[in-house]
């Protein structure tokens, strides 16, 4: 059974079709990366998967369970972690409480168990020493690593990353990618939206190129980077290499 199946997903805002007919699936432990120009519907797609945005049509199955028909969506969201471009840490809580609040209040684990779980995941992202700090006292890279630890502490089946490094200063991107690289090696199932093409090439098992609410093409990194079928994919990736050359 597939870990995630998305079939004919549709979403429109007023008279704009943001997701036209998206279908793809993911295996357990797979790292699937979604690339594409901005305004293409990548974030909307991720939010439809855990229904932070209600899809207009299609089907989403998580381990075979229908997400759109689920009566208690909260139960399903617990199994899908999400990491945001803007980190979205809880400002009034310490780093420890940011990571612990899910296991404690949502999963209703015992405080000692939730604390241990939180600390374990803070160690994974290298921030156990900041447990008592508040988000405003951290650098952007540290904030995002707390965001990742917060998602990990729920022990989800899948983590979705929406441009996790786009809000970071260039010198802070590395530490976040390093943590994600480790997760991929550990066998975490990850659905990642990013523009970090070097990173994509290195860790993606499969890539989806999306434009205007549609999947233009998908395939392995070798295929997408070296021999894309569609001219549009080639053009899109070319922008990045040109950009690199100019730099």
């Amino acid at each position, binding site marked *: 059974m597939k870990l995630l199946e998305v079939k004919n997903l549709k979403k429109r805002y007023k008279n704009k079709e943001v997701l036209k007919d998206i279908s793809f699936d993911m295996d357990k432990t797979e790292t699937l990366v979604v690339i594409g120009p901005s305004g293409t519907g990548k974030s909307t797609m991720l939010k439809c998967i855990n229904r932070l945005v209600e899809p207009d049509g299609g089907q989403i199955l998580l381990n075979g369970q229908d997400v759109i028909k689920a009566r208690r969506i909260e139960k399903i*969201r617990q199994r*899908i972690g*999400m990491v945001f471009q*803007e980190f979205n840490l*809880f*400002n009034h809580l310490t780093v420890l409480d940011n990571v612990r609040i*899910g296991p404690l209040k*949502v999963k209703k684990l015992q405080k000692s168990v939730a604390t241990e779980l939180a600390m374990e995941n803070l160690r994974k992202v290298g921030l156990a020493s900041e447990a008592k*700090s508040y988000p405003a006292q951290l650098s952007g890279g540290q904030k995002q690593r707390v965001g990742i630890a917060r998602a990990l502490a729920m022990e989800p089946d899948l983590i979705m990353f929406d441009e996790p490094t786009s809000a970071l200063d260039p010198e802070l991107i590395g530490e976040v990618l390093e943590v994600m690289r480790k997760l991929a090696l550990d066998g975490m199932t990850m659905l990642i939206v990013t523009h970090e093409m070097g990173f994509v090439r290195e860790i993606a098992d499969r890539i989806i190129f999306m434009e205007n609410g549609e999947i233009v093409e998908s395939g392995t990194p070798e295929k997408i980077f070296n021999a894309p079928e569609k001219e549009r994919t080639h053009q899109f990736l070319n922008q990045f290499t040109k950009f690199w050359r100019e730099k």
Partner: protein
Amino acid sequence: MEFFLSSMSVILRGTGVTVKLTVTSLFLGAIIAVFVALAQVYGKWWLNFIATAYERVLRSIPILIIMFMIFFGLPTFGIRFDPFIAAVISLGLRSSAYQSQIFRGALLAVSEGQIMAARSLGMTGVQTFFHISFPQAVRFSIAPMTNEFTIVLKDTSIAYALGVTELLREGTYIVSTTYEPLLIYSMCAAIYFVITFGTNKFVSIMEKGFAIPGYEVRGVERG
């Protein structure tokens, strides 16, 4: 000297009533305000409409008219309050309109992203409110509430008109026997000042105590 002491004790009694009026009215106002703000931020359109109408109307009527309507008007329907209660209800209702806007602004100042993050963890709307929105909104409300306290404190003097024996009425009573208006009213003014000043200091200390380290607390002004 003996006369001075007896005047002092009357004035202190009045001060006690003034403080009681202020605190009770603010408390009543705070409770109503939370519901008005909730209706405005999370309510369906019709709840939002009712809450907004309530808040706009109360903000537009002079406090003296609200007091007269409640104290002199309601008995027409057989509803009678003693002057103190009528004053608390009037000041409380009016303050609820302002406090609701403080709290509404504070709720809206909690970023959408944090709400989304909470929901993505699997929190329900109610859990998100109690664990994420409410604790931050309360902090954002502290600074603008100082201002509201000062306004309600000063407006309690209008309860004079209903015959509540608060600070100003006691002062006036003493003036009528001593013929020292400047002195006595200056004393009353000084007392209002001391309470306001002391409270502002107290709140700003509290605010620092509750502040989130590294995070600047944004507030919303009474407008």
